[in-house]
């Protein structure tokens, strides 16, 4: 008898342990995902730069700011470190160690500060992604030369440059403030973030009023009949339709039928709002239902019409719940990328979008684009963008939880 009990108790603890370990496994996975993103993103936040001496003493304003040979100036400045490098191909190789964006940043700098013309000054220039990774120790020198991105010559030059004391590791402002670029050291996710925000604004503006009013109609005014039943079943189904189907809808209806442009936040927002609508409707209905019927009765007995009951009593009481549901729906839309791929928001866009109809991409799509790029430096960039996306989403969800806790009406 006792043996039987101890056996059963053992089974009991085993069972409990399975449950506990499942949760621990899930938590570990979460930790691994976030940990690996953090670890991989480390190289992205800084960028090695070099102060180059810019000699503009022989140039005057009359030459025209745009016609100055900035590239030549940078080249001669860089080459001054290596008087022994003479062959053309070596020179080209050497110049490729610094970012090709340097020419444009120098030009922009001089345009804004024409007083520097005719002077000698130091100008901070980015290294290209490969050199940057070398300085950060991500290039395995023990590998055979032809399997590395940098050959022995380049590595010697980089080490030599490092010896001059001009090489500095600086916080990468580009990552946070730039749009996309083919050059990893220049690319940033600001453009994509703005694109996401514009898209989400469209989504909010459309799905919130439509969702709330639909819920009010179904909850308070609709006569129960086949049509409203059908609408209800429909909404529940829409909530579970794969997001990519909404992308197909957007492509077929908005772009091909209505002739709207591709790649614009307006269409992206339209598609995402159709996707978010069911979430908002369901959340609104359940928070409307949680308002006790006595409030409704009291207001009706006071001579309020149905409409007044809804807008003066039910809606204000249900607002915290509605907001929470909306935020959760929007957070999901914010992290969504599949439908946006289909409506062309996956284009390579350098400029930072400003309106609803500027070509744009979204933060999750930017992650997808970067993850697809062959340059190694994009791995770190992608991880950094991923972390930003996750933390934004956690912040948004946290806001929803706090909102619910703070304003929840207890009955």
């Amino acid at each position, binding site marked *: 008898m006792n043996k039987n009990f101890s056996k059963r108790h053992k089974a009991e603890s085993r069972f409990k342990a399975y449950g506990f370990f499942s949760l621990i496994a899930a938590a570990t996975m979460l930790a691994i995902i976030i940990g690996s993103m953090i670890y991989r993103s480390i190289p992205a936040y800084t960028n090695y730069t070099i102060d180059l001496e810019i000699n503009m003493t022989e140039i005057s304003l009359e030459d025209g700011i745009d016609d100055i040979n900035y590239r030549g100036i940078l080249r001669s400045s860089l080459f001054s470190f290596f008087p022994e490098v003479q062959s053309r191909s070596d020179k080209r190789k050497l110049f490729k160690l610094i970012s090709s964006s340097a020419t444009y940043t120098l030009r922009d700098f001089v345009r804004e500060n024409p007083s520097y013309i005719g002077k000698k000054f130091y100008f901070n220039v980015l290294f290209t992604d490969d050199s940057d990774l070398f300085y950060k120790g991500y290039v395995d020198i023990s590998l055979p030369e032809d399997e590395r991105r940098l050959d022995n010559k380049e590595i010697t030059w980089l080490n030599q440059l490092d010896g001059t004391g001009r090489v500095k590791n600086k916080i990468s402002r580009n990552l946070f403030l730039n749009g996309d670029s083919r050059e990893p050291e220049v690319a940033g996710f600001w453009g994509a973030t703005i694109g996401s925000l514009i898209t989400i604004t469209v989504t909010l503006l459309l799905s919130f009023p439509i969702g709330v009013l639909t819920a009010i109609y179904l909850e308070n005014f609709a*006569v*129960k009949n086949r049509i409203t039943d059908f609408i209800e079943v429909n909404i529940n189904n829409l909530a579970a339709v794969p997001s990519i189907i909404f992308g197909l809808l957007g492509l077929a209806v908005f772009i091909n039928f209505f002739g709207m442009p591709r790649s614009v936040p307006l269409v992206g927002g339209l598609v995402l709002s159709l996707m978010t609508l069911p979430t908002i409707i369901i959340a609104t209905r359940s928070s409307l239902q949680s308002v*006790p019927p*006595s*409030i*409704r*009765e*009291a*207001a*009706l*007995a*006071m*001579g*309020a*019409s149905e409409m*007044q009951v809804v807008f*003066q*009593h039910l809606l*204000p*009481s249900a607002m915290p719940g509605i907001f929470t549901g909306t935020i959760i729906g929007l957070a999901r839309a914010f992290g969504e990328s599949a439908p946006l791929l289909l409506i062309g928001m996956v284009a390579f866009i350098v400029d930072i979008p400003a309106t609803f109809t500027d070509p744009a991409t979204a933060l999750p799509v930017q992650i997808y684009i970067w993850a697809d790029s062959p340059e190694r430096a994009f791995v770190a960039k992608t991880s950094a963008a991923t972390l930003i996306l996750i933390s934004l989403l956690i912040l948004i969800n946290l806001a929803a939880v706090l909102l619910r806790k703070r304003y929840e*009406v207890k009955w």
Partner: protein
Amino acid sequence: MDKELENNNIIENKALIECKNVDVFYANQQALFGINLNIGEKEVTSLIGPSGCGKSTFLRCINRMNDVIDICRVEGSIKISNEDIYHPDIDVVELRSRIGMVFQKPNPFPKSVYDNVAYGPKLHGRILHKDDLDEKVEKSLERAGLWSEVKDRLSEPGTSLSGGQQQRLCIARAIAIDPSIILMDEPCSALDPIATAKIEELIDELKDNFTITIVTHSMQQAARVSQRTAFFHLGKLIEVGDTEKIFRSPDHEQTEAYVTGRYG
């Protein structure tokens, strides 16, 4: 039996509410059977009877709160001041603005005390100036016997008051729209005896200005506050008459059985 009822239905005051052959159905289930009842002006009429006898249903016919329930159907005629309130031309909203109602459980809006009382006057656009509104709120709270208790707490939420205070707030809210009739659906069932006594006092004072119909399951309460009493049983009006008569010497056996506590 009908004849008997007719006799009992003679009231000294002019009848304000006249009900003739009122039937109420919930889907296919009949809840009230041919109710004939007149309710006199400026007196308190209590509706008594065992649970589920239809007294609340009847009360809710008077301000058409039954309209809210989809499956509910009302037949027969109910006239208030000789106006058929179930006539298609009647605006329910307008009708309810003339009838106040107090519910079983106090149900103040989750707004401030002031806004609770000011809600009706604002809703119906009767008062345009802030000063007039302040005055109205004060007067209504005073008549509900609540002013001295809440005059410093007007901006606190109505739900923060005690149960008895909440119920008096609901009464203040109801009288703020100057109704001619106040319907009360077991207004004291959720309150303690002290709060109940206060409400009963209040009812007594209010009857000078309002026609009050109260549903109660406490016979003592009916005896204390009402001038006339109607006894409902199984959806039928068994007997109606002066409260004293109903409790002392009812005509009907069933009534007697109920008021003496033999069942119910």
